[in-house]
């Protein structure tokens, strides 16, 4: 008790310094849950110190990975705020003790499937019990993999940590930008299957796909609206590279921008009202947003983060993550309401939010190939996902799983 108190002081002190409300600091007598209503400031939030005992091998690896990328750090038991312990023989059994409240706040046994998924389920329960947020342990991603370096690639689906990766295309052509259809096991993506880039809808359950956007000579960067009824895309249908919106089946195409410059990478606000995208005005690259019904284009300032592209709006509506380009690519996050300047977090590109709006998956360059990484936005803790097939990029986090 005496020994861990300085940790709490550190948490309070750092929160105070970064300008957050001081009432995030716990009083001596406050409960454990209160302590973790952390001021979530991108890149500056302190991790929650926990100890992990009794696990080894794959189960320990899964628990460490899941918790690290959701804002926990691993320390010796005497410095920990929570003690996580348990065992994994035939099945994972685990408990969490809150040292301050001096009580066991989680005790559970997991059966079925395999130890790996049991460990993810335990990690989810730990995250929910301590922070009140649903964990990401059992979520999935889609991404593009280029195994050979000749430009051709396939769309893959895997667990969020890259485990159990499965190709869902077998076309050996250029593919890009998978985007999950909400509420179902289905993707939109771009494929050069017919020669030019077109957008396909691919129902992964049925193993069927259909061509949904085949306008002009270019149809790329599909982004599905949160209710699944609309598709934002980039096309050259009218002879310029512009942002369009269509019904999810590709019909009823409507042009939203009318600029000879190149628009790219649309994403939706979670309320479905706005489409945010990258554009250029007078040769300068900017983020902008336009009503999904059309209308005036509003630019979004990204002071201190030049050449923004690849915006992704967090599911809780609070944040926009994007890629800034200087001599390298950097992952940046800013409040969606523009109330603060962006925070430059780590080198990387193509960020995609987790369903709980806490973690990003993105890609970064290692020896001129892309590899996927997972970033806890608030503590800036980052872990690489294992290389799956050659260059792995353009990850899309499935938002409807928790």
């Amino acid at each position, binding site marked *: 008790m005496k020994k861990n108190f300085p940790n709490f002081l550190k948490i309070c002190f750092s929160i105070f310094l970064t300008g957050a409300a001081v009432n995030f600091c716990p009083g001596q007598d406050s409960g454990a849950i209160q302590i973790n209503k952390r001021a979530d400031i991108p890149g500056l939030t302190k991790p929650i110190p926990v100890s992990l005992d009794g696990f080894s091998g794959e189960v320990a690896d899964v628990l460490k990975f899941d918790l690290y990328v959701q804002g926990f750090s691993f320390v010796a038991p005497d410095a920990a705020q929570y003690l996580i312990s348990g065992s994994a023989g035939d099945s994972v059994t685990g408990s969490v003790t809150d040292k301050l409240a001096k009580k066991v706040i989680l005790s559970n046994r997991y059966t079925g499937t395999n130890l790996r998924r049991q460990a993810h389920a335990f990690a989810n329960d730990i995250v929910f019990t301590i922070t009140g947020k*649903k964990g990401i342990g059992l979520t999935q991603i889609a991404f593009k993999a280029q195994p050979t370096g000749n430009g051709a690639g396939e769309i893959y689906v895997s667990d969020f940590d890259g485990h159990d990766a499965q190709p869902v295309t077998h076309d050996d052509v250029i593919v*890009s930008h998978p985007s999950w259809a909400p509420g179902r*096991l289905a993707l939109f993506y771009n494929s050069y299957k*017919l020669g030019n880039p077109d957008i396909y809808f691919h129902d*992964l359950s049925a193993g069927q*796909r259909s061509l949904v956007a*085949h306008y002009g000579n270019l149809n790329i960067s599909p982004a599905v609206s949160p209710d699944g009824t609309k598709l934002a895309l980039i096309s050259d249908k009218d002879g310029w590279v512009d942002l369009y919106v269509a019904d999810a089946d590709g019909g009823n195409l409507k042009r939203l921008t009318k600029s000879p410059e190149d628009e790219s990478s649309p994403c939706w606000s979670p309320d479905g009202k706005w489409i945010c995208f990258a554009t250029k005005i007078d040769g300068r690259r900017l983020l902008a947003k336009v009503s999904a019904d059309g209308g005036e284009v509003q630019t979004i300032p990204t002071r201190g983060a030049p050449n923004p592209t690849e915006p992704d709006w967090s599911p809780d509506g609070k944040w926009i993550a994007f*890629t800034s380009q200087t001599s390298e690519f950097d992952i940046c996050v800013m409040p969606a309401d523009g109330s603060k300047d962006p925070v430059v977090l780590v080198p990387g590109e193509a960020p995609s939010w987790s369903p709980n709006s806490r973690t990003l998956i993105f890609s970064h360059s290692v020896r001129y190939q892309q590899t996927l990484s997972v970033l806890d936005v608030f503590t800036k803790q980052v872990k690489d996902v294992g290389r799956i097939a050659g260059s792995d*990029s*353009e990850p899309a986090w499935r938002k409807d799983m928790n």
Partner: protein
Amino acid sequence: MKTTLVYSLAFTLAATLAATGCKHTTGKVTALPAAPTPPPAVDQVPTTRNSGPERATTYTPPNGPDTTGIALPPSEDMYGMNPDPAALAAFTVHFAYDSAAIRKSEQVNLQEVAKALSADPKTKVLVEGNCDERGTEEYNRSLGERRALAAREALAKLGVDSTRVFVRSYGKDKPADPGHDEAAWQKNRRDDFVLLHPKPGA
């Protein structure tokens, strides 16, 4: 079909687990559903525009044709032709960093492309726009397209009928030089021109 059922069942169970997994009591047991099975392989790939769903386009340009680009011919019109990448390989047009503007020094190449097209009215051309690696993937896919469209607009000014000019952006997926320095980047910021011949008998 059976696989499909198992797969969707697995996800339904996973969702149920997530919804109920937060009520903890000491000694509780959480039974996990089976892990998702791999998705089945695809299938029927539609090969023509007509095999996709019906698309009724309602768009009309709000400000008239003078403020829009030159409408594209459908991609299908080139898929039936024989590509000849060698014929115009000497006339590749190069670009400045992050720019789609055709430089004066490149005009001569466009004139050569226009000349080749006028020499044989049955031919068409595919302009392939490419970028160097300094740019995110989808940004470069849009920039490559803009570069190809810029050449198409320049060819129109030289009298080439735009229904004969197709475009395709490869973004940074098809570098001419795999290097990672300015010398390679200069070669990679380019439009390649692929002459298209009608198939014999067509």
